[in-house]
């Protein structure tokens, strides 16, 4: 795989940032988009646009087919059993809210416990917090170890008779820790507890196989997978989608509507109320194809090489402290420099065209635990190169110079 060629497929890299080449190290936040995705959006709107599933005219038929094609592509990509286990949402956040709301309505009562981890993104905590308020449930936090990992043991310790659902990230967007999902699912299922996986960082970087993972719910954001903004995927086992109540109400999700009552449509319509993000869903098919063409194994390998290289280079830079040291780690490095606040680092790096993120990365619980108000974070995509890491390191040295550090 020639990474230089891959980079060329992303038009964004033709631009200069403050007269420098763009070194984009913020893919955990959102990835850049290859040209085929942009072309697909353009072509769809200019040649095939219509609303989906509602009219019988030519354009509507074409659009509906394209829309459903993506569902099948996603199903295959993540190895779901049934295409109707794929629900399109506006993002992973909505996917998690959907489950928190509907599962919460039906299965959570006063005193019940939702088990999450200290690594969770706010998107996998706040929706459960709502239930704490409305239903008086409890939220328990599985604790990280010194390496910034969540072990099977850490989950086990927190499971009680009251635990009704376990909600965990696949890959931490701060420490990069990859969680032992399969083992956690086995443990949970042995106690009859369903598992929701926040796959925001898993989906772009790891091979996905729902049959192998065995989880009940898996949430994905398209924009982190080289896809458009405004599109996400909720994978849920069919039995759950059939069992849980609908989330939003509107056109398309109903069967019959009478003044006295309403019956809901079959899967997946039941969960896709209103006009969906048609163009985004259709273009997302190209993102999947893009990843398939390279091969997720090759993406994983490339990102692992980058990660090893970056840990080596930054590790030798004596002012830099890398946050966490998980044995099983994805392409995310959060770090601090003693004496320079992450925000100042990000501003100085930006001047060189190096885009990183600074802050708590929507993980305040974790940052509290680490005793760090903020960290700087470099995260990788398939288009990154070792030169990007070298430039990152050079720019970090420039930070130190400006701040008069050795």
């Amino acid at each position, binding site marked *: 795989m020639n990474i230089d060629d891959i980079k060329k497929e992303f038009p964004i890299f033709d631009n200069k940032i403050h007269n420098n080449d763009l070194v984009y190290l913020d893919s955990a936040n959102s990835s850049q988009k290859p040209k085929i995705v942009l072309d697909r959006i353009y072509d769809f709107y200019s040649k095939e646009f219509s609303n989906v599933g509602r009219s019988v005219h030519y354009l509507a038929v074409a659009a509906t087919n394209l829309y459903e094609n993506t569902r099948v592509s996603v199903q295959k990509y993540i190895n779901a059993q049934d295409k109707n286990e794929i629900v399109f949402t506006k993002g992973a956040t909505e996917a998690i809210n959907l489950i928190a709301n509907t599962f919460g309505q039906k299965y959570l009562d006063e005193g019940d416990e939702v088990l999450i981890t200290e690594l969770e993104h706010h998107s996998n905590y706040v929706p459960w917090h709502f239930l704490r308020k409305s239903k008086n449930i409890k939220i328990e936090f599985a604790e990280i170890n010194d390496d910034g990992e969540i072990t099977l043991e850490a989950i086990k310790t927190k499971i009680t008779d009251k635990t009704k659902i376990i909600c965990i990230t696949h890959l931490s967007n701060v420490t990069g820790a990859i969680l032992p999902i399969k083992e956690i699912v086995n443990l949970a299922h042995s106690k009859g507890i369903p598992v929701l996986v926040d796959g925001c960082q898993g989906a772009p970087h790891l091979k996905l196989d729902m049959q192998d993972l065995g989880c009940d719910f898996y949430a994905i954001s398209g924009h982190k997978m080289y896809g458009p903004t405004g599109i996400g995927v909720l994978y849920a086992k069919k039995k759950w989608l059939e069992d849980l109540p609908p989330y939003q109400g509107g056109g398309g999700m109903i069967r019959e509507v009478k003044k006295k009552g309403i019956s809901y449509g*079959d*899967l997946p319509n039941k969960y896709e109320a209103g006009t969906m993000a048609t163009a985004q869903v259709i273009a997302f098919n190209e993102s999947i194809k893009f990843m398939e063409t390279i091969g997720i194994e090759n993406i994983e390998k490339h990102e692992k090489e980058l990660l090893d290289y970056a840990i080596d280079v930054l590790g030798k830079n004596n002012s830099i402290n890398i946050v966490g040291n998980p044995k099983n780690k994805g392409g995310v490095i959060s770090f601090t420099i003693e004496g320079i606040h992450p925000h100042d680092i990000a501003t100085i790096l930006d001047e060189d065209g190096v885009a990183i993120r600074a802050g708590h990365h929507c993980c305040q619980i974790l940052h509290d635990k680490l005793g760090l108000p903020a960290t700087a974070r470099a995260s990788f995509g398939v288009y990154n190169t070792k030169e990007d890491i070298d430039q990152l390191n050079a720019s970090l040295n420039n930070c130190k110079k400006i701040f008069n550090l050795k």
Partner: protein
Amino acid sequence: MNLKELYQEIILDHGKNPRNLRKTDNYNKDAKGHNPLCGDNVHVFLKLDENKKVDDISFEGSGCAISMASASIMTDLVRGKEEAEVKEIVTDFLDMIKEKDDLNSKLLNDDEKTKLMCLSGVKQYPMRVKCATLSWHTLTSAIDNSQEVINTES
């Protein structure tokens, strides 16, 4: 595509004057079908005798020419057939509409096959396939005594 093939005279005739559009007295099996896209409804009533032979079959509902004609032709065809035979005919018809070029069942005579093949025009109109198949799915559901409403959207 060819509208003439879709709207053949026989379809227009059955569509306008559907046979068996009524409710069988003393029916012993029934099922409802629904197409949420167009709001079409069909309710199929079956009276099987002690030998599981179709003594009477009828339907109620409203819909487009295709769906009315399809239900009309279907109800005409299966009267007098045994339950197992009905199922074979349904499968044969659905296979034809979905992928096969022809009808294969030996239970249908040439005349009956010709009639049914008139519905094959919908193959060129994917959004209309559901109109042609709704009553057939509903018939299966009635025979199987399944309580769910048939929904062609899925």
